[in-house]
């Protein structure tokens, strides 16, 4: 039972950092949601805010880690052109059922050698690779707002709602990346 270096990076990108992001999001959202007047004592606010600061910054850091490793380490393995032979752009993918040494995942999906797979690249990967960069930007801005206003968010429901919108926006962008990443790795894994 072993993983090669590409599989290890794929795991770090999607499973480790993605899971950390999700955990931090869930905790952060619950914390933000319950920042309401009359629910906590002064001591409780201090304890709750400390956890919320850590969770929000961990979420932002995990998002940065996921997009940077995804874009600069994993994505080049996905998109490299391996299959072109002469005039035939997908000769290296002929009769394959999975990507391999002569057919990158992008070559494989665009070649349609294993069914109608091109849309997984043209829609799924194209959307994922771009929109996920919104996640760390929104998560960092939300973490800054949480740190800047701190317990004042309890008394300002509108501001708290605005921060929640940014927090959920970061999550939504990450969900697109995570969901399509999981599907794409199932259909055309990086090997």
């Amino acid at each position: 039972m072993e993983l090669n270096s590409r599989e290890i990076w794929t795991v770090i990108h999607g499973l480790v950092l993605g899971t950390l992001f999700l955990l931090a999001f869930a905790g952060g959202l619950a914390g933000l949601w319950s920042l309401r007047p009359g629910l906590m004592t002064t001591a409780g606010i201090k304890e709750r805010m400390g956890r919320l600061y850590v969770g929000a910054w961990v979420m932002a850091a995990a998002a940065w880690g996921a997009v940077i490793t995804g874009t600069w380490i994993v994505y080049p393995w996905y998109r490299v052109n391996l299959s072109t032979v002469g005039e035939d752009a997908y000769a290296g993918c002929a009769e394959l059922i999975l990507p391999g040494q002569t057919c990158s995942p992008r070559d494989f999906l665009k070649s349609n050698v294993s069914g109608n797979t091109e849309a997984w690249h043209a829609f799924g990967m194209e959307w994922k690779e771009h929109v996920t960069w919104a996640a760390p930007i929104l998560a960092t801005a939300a973490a800054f707002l949480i740190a800047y206003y701190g317990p004042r968010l309890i008394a300002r429901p509108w501001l708290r709602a605005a921060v929640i919108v940014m927090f959920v926006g970061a999550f939504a962008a990450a969900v697109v990346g995570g969901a399509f990443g999981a599907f794409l790795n199932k259909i055309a894994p990086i090997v």
Partner: protein
Amino acid sequence: MITDFKPGMYDDVGVAPELKGLNLAEKPDGPGAAAMISAGVGIFVLGLLTTTAVISGTVKSFLLWWEWGQGVGPLAGKSTIAVIAWLISWAILYFLWRNKDVVLKTAFYIGLGLGILGAIGTFPTFFELFHS
């Protein structure tokens, strides 16, 4: 929308008496507004570059330059420039508004509008409309 910071605009302790024991000093809203708008700027630039790379070969070539031979393609330029635009706009707005009060609702809606436009720009069904 932008005024000099004057404490007393918020009655936080009146709304949430449990905050009294924390002795929180009031802060200007300028830095918060800067964070909201700049996040929208970053996402807007991301979407704008994603769509213009489809429209213009020159833009696509420029974005490719940012990959430094790593095989990332135009995504390197789109993401790097978007992050730079976000950070620069944040730094500028923060510097300008650090001691100011800015109407947060307006700032939030500006950031939200820019963010939605940027998200649309990253949506393949949209940017493929411009594929020649």
